[in-house]
């Protein structure tokens, strides 16, 4: 005999003695993620290679990694389900950054944080579509800033190195801080437990240099 779902109380109704502050902690995490989700997009090239992207400007500017963009007109799917063919505005393989434009307005964005002020030990979260699983989140802390981590390729560049599980499909998605601010663009993995993101101040410079 089956058990009706109605016989179970929802988690929120069960008193399991969790201190209020820990409930608050969970709410803080989900709140930051909920806001950031709105600016997370999917990028596809034809039938294959699902990557992520981050809405940068309400008027349709999308940021992603250069390695996510394989077609001249990649397809961008927003979190509300709408899908758009995108135009590649700027592309820099060396920085592994690309800016796309879609014909849309009033898009939700994530407030940029100060990636120069990120410190080892700070909590961060990566959003993306690992292995094609949509809107997944992983959390961890900043291991270090800069390019000092052993075994990291392109060590002459600036990176945010994080101890969380980044997988194919995270690329181009947002890395956010505890306040839900954008601090980096997820870019690659270095070993199973090290994620690497491009700091948002490098992204800003890329856009500024490209526009000039």
């Amino acid at each position: 005999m089956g058990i009706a779902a109605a016989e179970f109380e929802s988690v929120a109704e069960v008193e399991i003695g969790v201190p209020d502050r820990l409930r608050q902690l969970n709410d803080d995490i989900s709140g930051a993620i909920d806001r950031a989700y709105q600016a997370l997009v999917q990028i596809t090239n034809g039938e294959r290679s699902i990557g992520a992207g981050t809405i940068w400007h309400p008027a349709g500017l999308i940021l992603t990694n250069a390695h996510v963009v394989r077609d001249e007109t990649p397809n961008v799917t927003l979190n509300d389900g709408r899908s758009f063919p995108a135009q590649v505005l700027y592309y820099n393989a060396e920085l592994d950054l690309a800016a796309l434009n879609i014909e849309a307005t009033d898009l939700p964005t994530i407030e940029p944080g100060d990636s120069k002020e990120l410190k080892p030990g700070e909590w961060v979260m990566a959003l993306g579509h690992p292995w094609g699983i949509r809107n997944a989140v992983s959390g961890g802390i900043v291991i270090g800033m800069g390019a000092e981590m052993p075994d990291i390729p392109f060590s002459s560049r600036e990176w945010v190195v994080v101890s969380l599980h980044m997988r194919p499909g995270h690329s181009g998605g947002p890395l956010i801080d505890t306040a839900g601010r954008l601090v980096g663009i997820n870019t690659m993995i270095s070993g199973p437990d090290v994620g690497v993101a491009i700091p948002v101040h490098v992204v800003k410079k890329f856009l500024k240099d490209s526009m000039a």
Partner: protein
Amino acid sequence: MTVLNELSNAMANAVETVGASLVRVEGRKRMSATGVVWNSDGVIVTASHVVTRDEELHIGLPNGETVTASLVGRDPTTDVAVLRTDAKNLSVPHWAGGDGLKVGHLVLALGRPGQNVLATLGVVSSIAEEWHTPAGGKIDYYLQTDVTMYPGFSGGPLVGVGGEIYGINSSTLLRGVSVTIPTTTIAPIVETLLKHGKLRRGYLGVGSQPVRLPAALEQQLGQETGLLLVAVEPNSPAEKGGLMLGDVIVALDGHPVRVPDELLAGLTGEKVGKDAKLKLVRGGQLLELNVTVGERQ
């Protein structure tokens, strides 16, 4: 401020505070590792396995300076090495015992394999009783975490969210798990190494291998194996005490001896010069011998 923000700041502050006491240890061909300031006299604690040479050691200080260091001594059995530098004004961190630390607590592992402090987060996976490492070292309590030991993190501290140090992390004491050598184990080792330059270890002068005991003895002693002596060095404490080739050691001072590591672990420094009671099987009979333990050179 949100609770998440508070937690995040607390962790970053702990990294910053303890980071002021972390040094880079250049003591092997492969990449550098990490050490922690022990006291204001320039004494540094690190993992023994990251210091593969005894000379030409260098320490990278938090201020970016690189200074020379000398090896005070090492204990490979617990993977602890002690170095000394002439550097003054090093920041001494808060070394803590394990009281109050519980399975599930958040902990940080820190490293300084390069110029900057690196951090990673995990939880305490297991706390258990005193144990002996495979190399025979005695560790006050077993402390395992799920922190990822990145290259160069060995010798670095396990840090609580309040910035207290519970010990130093080793990636080689047990393969495949992150084990911490507790502060309470490190302290007497550092003291002994500073005083004597080495740890005393007991010595018998035997070569041995485990053998299965006859069924009757197995039942009587409650152990499956003993140590068959396959070599007894001339003039060794073992020979002087009357041990012979073919004897099978089954206990040392009341503790069962089933494998060579248990004999090694039992021959601690404080037994040097004293009589140890060996229980053994000779010609099918159990017998006890007193052997004066020597010192391993």
